[in-house]
Each structure stands twice: as structure tokens, then as C-alpha cells.
């Protein structure tokens, strides 16, 4: 993610998208990365910006998905 965003200027709750930091290619790559890295499939109804908008949101989302696996 550091390729996209300055990691040292973002805190765990900052919204990447509201800060205008990223674009849809980033979003796609983030989604693909999570699916590959954690071996999960993200359904359409989970492709909600709320699950991906901050470091904390992504961590919680992955945690919940893995718990259900």
C-alpha cells in the first residue's frame, strides 16, 4: 500500500477515499490483494466502501471473513 499512499501520513482510521488518496485501480488491487493473501472470496454485497475505507475497516473486514471460514 505504501506504493500508493504515504504510510507515515495516514492513521488507522483515516478514510483513504475521502482524502482523495486513491482511485479505482487502487481499490481493485486492494480487493485482489486481500482475496489472494487471505484466500477469501469477496462477494458483491461485501464490496462496500465501508469495508475498505481505512486500515481499521479492512482489518475488521478480513478478521470477520476469516472467522467465518
Amino acid at each position, binding site marked *: 500500500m505504501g506504493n500508493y*499512499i504515504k504510510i507515515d501520513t495516514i492513521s488507522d482510521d483515516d478514510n483513504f477515499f475521502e482524502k482523495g488518496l486513491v482511485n479505482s485501480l487502487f481499490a481493485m488491487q486492494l480487493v485482489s490483494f486481500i482475496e489472494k493473501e487471505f484466500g477469501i472470496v469477496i462477494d458483491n454485497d461485501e464490496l462496500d466502501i465501508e469495508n475498505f475505507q481505512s486500515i481499521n475497516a479492512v482489518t475488521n473486514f478480513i478478521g470477520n471473513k476469516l472467522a467465518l471460514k
Partner: protein
Amino acid sequence: MRGRKIKCVVWDLDETVWRGILSEGDDVKLRPKVPDIMRGLDERGILQSVCSKNDFDQAWSKLDEMGLSYLFIYPQISWNPKSMGVKEIAKLINIAQDAIAFVDDQEFELAEVGGECPNVMCINSADLDGFLEMDEMNPRFITEDSTRRRLLYQDDIKRGKIEDSFVGTKDEFLRTLDMKLTISLAVEGDLKRAEELTVRTHQLNSTGDVYSYEQLRELIGSQTYEVLIVQLDDKYGTYGKIGLALIEKDGIRWELKLLLMSCRVISRGVGGVILSYLVNKAISNGAELFARFVPSDRNRIMYISYKFGGFREDGKKGDCIILKADTSKLRVLPDYIAIEEG
């Protein structure tokens, strides 16, 4: 594959482009038909590359000497299997393998590429007669964007090199480009390019619907439709006309029938910006904005753009998902890209 159109021709060199084997010290001679074919393809906007088992520097300087090297992007000259080179070219240009033709004189190489990349069109170079007349090599229209397509890609390659050597984040890099997006109502002169976009674009395409020149001409004349064409420029030059949006307006119900963008601009954040622009336009007209999305094996990125751009699923019609924009608040447009209404 019926109706397929080739976007890139990948040439072998020894005994295909020239007679003789360069690495065996032959005094190789350009095959007389080859330059005309290459220039013909170039003029119609079909990209070309090279995939040859040779020493890179030696082969490239030979192509230079023959006055052909300017025609090729992403040349793959090495001792690796040719299927690797062909796959690499598809990846770097960001096109599907079924849009690639591979030309070689050796059955072994044609079979190796055909085995590893079954969707690539393999052509034996023994007989090059009629090459330019093949249906696959003839786009329906030749537009301004197609005649300069190679140059547009070569500019992108230059930008990519600048980007690779840029120290900083992608976001900071985008800020250095001084990008300008021009969104205009399509006029008749844009329609060939608009049709070409509907035919050529798969990844950044919301429905996969193909619209013909004639259909688009009807739509631009209609009161209920708005056909928008999008051009992107930056300080290094133009990317050409890279996007198309088709909106049906039924009173205050606006429906985005089709949204697509050239894959050359996939890393520029343009899709989200166009969506935000359209949502804001709907809001300022007191309209609701719906969008059609038909999932394919390649366009998931569009779905994500919609969802992350504040659209929610609102229903389904057959294969088509109807999305609805949250119009309760205006979208903030990024400050690294200027928008002009043409």
C-alpha cells in the same frame, strides 16, 4: 473466432521479417513484402511487437538499420520460450490474448505459442499474401485515435518510465502530470471513435453493449439521450478520446446505460472522477442517477468503481444489475485533475 479483430501483431524475426538467421552470422535480407504490411497495420492502428530468439542488441540494431524499429512496442527478444514473450506483450499492453496475432515461420514455435496461449491467432509467415486483407486485420473504422495509436502507446511508455523513476507515491505522481479531462457532448465526428471504444474496451466497460455508428448517431439526435465523450490530456501530451458515457434521461430519472474507458488510462483514476462528475451533475439537476452493470469475467473493476463511488444495488433485470447513486451529497472531485466541459 468469428468477428475477432486483432489489436497487436507479434512478429518473429529470422525467416519471417528477414531471410536468414541473424545469430548464425547470415547477412540477413528484409523480406520485400514485410515493410508494407507493417506500415499498413500501423496506419490502421494495429499495434506491433517482436518476439524472437536472438540477442536483443544485435537484433534491435538490425531492425533499426532496416528502418523498422520505431514500429514496435515492448519487443521481446531473448532465448526464452516465445509463449512467454507473447504473454508478456499482452500483459504490458493490457489486452486479451485473443486480440493478438503471432507470426512465425516455424511450426514448432507456432505450436508452442498456440499450446500455451490457445486464444492467440497463430499465422505461418511462409505466405504473407493477403495479410492486410484478412478480416481480423481490418478494423471497421479508422479513426484519428487509431492512426496515432502507436504514438499514444509510446507516449504512455515514456510516462511509465518517468513514473517508475519517480520517488514518491502514485498519488504524488498523478499530481505532477497536470491532467485535464474534457467532457463533451459527442458530435458526429466523434462517433467512429465512440463505436471503436465500445468494440475495443472490455475491462473498463460497465455493460459490454456494443453500439454501432448508426445507433450512436440516432442517440445524439435524440432528446432523451446524452452521449458524452471524454478526452484526457496531461503535460506530456494527449491520451486521445478515452471514455464514453451514455445517459438516458427520463424526466428526473437518469440512467447511465454505458460507461467505458480505454485501459490505457486505468492507472489515472479517471473512472471515479467521471462517475463523481455525473453524480454531481444529476444532483444539480435534481435527478436520480441509476447505472446498468453487466458483470463479465473482466470488468469487476467497474463494479468496484461504482460501489466505491457511492452506488448501491437497486435491482436486477436479467443479467443486468441496476445500481443507484447516493445523491444525498455532492462528490468531492480530486484536485489533481482539472475538468473542462467541452
